[in-house]
């Protein structure tokens, strides 16, 4: 058994013990549901393990009594485990911030609001003022996308691409929605691209049902972080960042090549030269492109195209 699985098993057993002692003879079903056992066998294994544990001497009078009797779980001779464990600060904060954040979304409900209030009152009366957590505001189509992912509904979306600012219409099979770094994202199988794609929900202009369904995954895919991982055909540029542009190195996954004190030299990877071009235009005099022909060309093209709208042309 791996260390992580051992920890998980131990955590569950140590949580089950005080609860089962305070609520004697619970049903097998209730214990399984509450503590997330996926099979009766798994629960029986844990009880068998407890049956071999207890106090030194380890004779019949020292070991715990733990077994399944018909529909009931019997746990006895373990009074020393009757006190529930406290939450660690990290756990308490996680619980509280999860409650606070979700309560502020459309997924929140009255029960959650009450739970958060009780938790705050019981554990840390001051927490309500000094802790806050929020998720990004929910774009209009979020609920439709969430339901489509759950029910396996094929959708047609009108999407304004992040990289090109061009609109496309595509059929997709939504997998899950995910809030990260201030935005909501949709992970979906895109039939136009024939591959999995990530869409920013606020850039989806319209959603229509196709009247077609797909088989949703038994489990939603694990949400990975939204960091960009360069693919084989990525474009690279070497950029020197002045003091006002150093944040770029923290915000984007870049490789730091050199820090002269005055300038930070980075290697910036992108899927589309326009990403680098926009960044350079944004940074203005704060950054300098050292190397990267595609990015240089695109920056010049984009600069002149925008300036033309301001009726300024190259002199």
């Amino acid at each position: 058994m791996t260390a992580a699985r051992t920890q998980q098993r131990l955590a569950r057993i140590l949580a089950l013990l005080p609860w089962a002692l305070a609520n004697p003879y619970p049903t097998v079903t209730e214990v399984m549901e509450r503590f997330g056992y996926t099979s009766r066998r798994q629960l029986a294994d844990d009880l068998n393990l407890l049956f071999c544990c207890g106090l030194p001497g380890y004779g019949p009078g020292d070991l715990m009594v733990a077994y399944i009797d018909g529909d009931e779980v019997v746990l006895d001779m373990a009074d020393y485990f009757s006190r529930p464990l406290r939450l660690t600060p990290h756990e308490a904060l996680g619980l509280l911030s999860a409650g606070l954040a979700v309560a502020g979304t459309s997924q929140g409900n009255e029960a959650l609001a009450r739970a958060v209030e009780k938790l705050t009152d019981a554990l840390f009366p001051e927490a309500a003022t000094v802790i806050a957590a929020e998720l990004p505001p929910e774009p209009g189509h979020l609920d439709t996308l969430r339901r489509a992912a759950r029910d396996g509904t094929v959708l047609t979306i009108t999407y304004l691409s992040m990289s090109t600012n061009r609109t496309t219409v595509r059929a997709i099979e939504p997998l899950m929605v995910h809030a990260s770094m201030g935005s909501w994202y949709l992970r979906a199988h895109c039939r136009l691209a024939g591959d999995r794609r990530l869409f920013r929900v606020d850039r989806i202009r319209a959603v229509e049902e196709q009247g077609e369904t797909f088989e949703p995954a038994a489990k939603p895919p694990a949400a990975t972080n939204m960091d960009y991982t360069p693919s084989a055909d990525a474009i690279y540029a070497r950029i020197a960042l002045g003091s006002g542009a150093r944040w770029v190195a923290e915000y984007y996954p870049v490789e730091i090549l050199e820090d002269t004190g005055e300038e930070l030299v980075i290697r910036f990877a992108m899927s589309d030269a326009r990403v680098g071009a926009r960044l350079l235009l944004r940074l203005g005099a704060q950054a300098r492109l050292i190397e990267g022909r595609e990015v240089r060309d695109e920056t010049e093209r984009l600069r002149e195209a925008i300036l033309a709208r301001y009726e300024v042309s190259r002199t």
Partner: protein
Amino acid sequence: MSTVVERLINLLAYLVDSPRPVTAERIRNTVAGYENLSDQAFHRKFERDKASLRELGIELEQEATDAWEVEWGYVVPESNYRTIEPGLTDEERTALALAVHMVRSGGWPSGANCLLKLGGARLTDTDTPVGADLGLGSQHLGLIFQAVLERRRILCGYRGRPRTLCTYAMHHRRGRWYFAGVEPEQADTIRTYRLDRAEQLELVGEPDAFPRPEGYGARDILSSLPWEQREPQRSLIECDPEIAWWVENRFPDARAVGITEAGGTILEVPFVNDSLLDTVIHLDDGAVILEPPELRAAMVRRLEAGR
């Protein structure tokens, strides 16, 4: 041969049941699972076991076994146990479990334990395909939380300089945790810090080390961020029809005020600083700032700066 889990349960049972501190030597000779080990092997195993328990929030402490303090032994102190019962109903526990589930799938794998400790919960709808990243992976979060609630000082490195900080509140927003506080020698200036930029964070000193300014709360952190402070001004931006809808949604206070001959939409967009230029640059040549003239000029300057 007993498993790790059995050994840890036996160890805990013995410590919790014992009326007085138990020496390591006694544990070694008494608790099932530590038999027949060399000094070194026992030591290693015992240290690992203590670490496993610590990870679950069970902190073993050492106390003298008698008044003469000749011998020291281990205890499981009271502080490891819940003293207050939040009194959650099953429905409330399930609601919390769903919230935790959502946040877990966004990256907080150890999150399940906290609900188990509160008595578990029936999860009815775990296949809800929604995830949210609350940045709960950071190891420093528990420390900052303690510092804020207990009003304890922290020591950390921030922007290349070691600092002692009195922290007042913390806030998660847009994927980041912020905390606010002061350096004791500049107690009038409340500053905002980003948790992911704080290094080698540790708690120092006793609880209740400083007062929290009356009425100061987590919501104040945002208003102290520089871009949240100023009164917004109005700008007019002409957008191509393809992107106008997005700009209108992107700025909740924006509104369409006109149509151009070319079919573009003129939007009135409030702004507080130059960061509006960044957003407009991301629209490529699909948008142009019409007013105010200073903002328009700033845009041209910005674009020409790199020529």
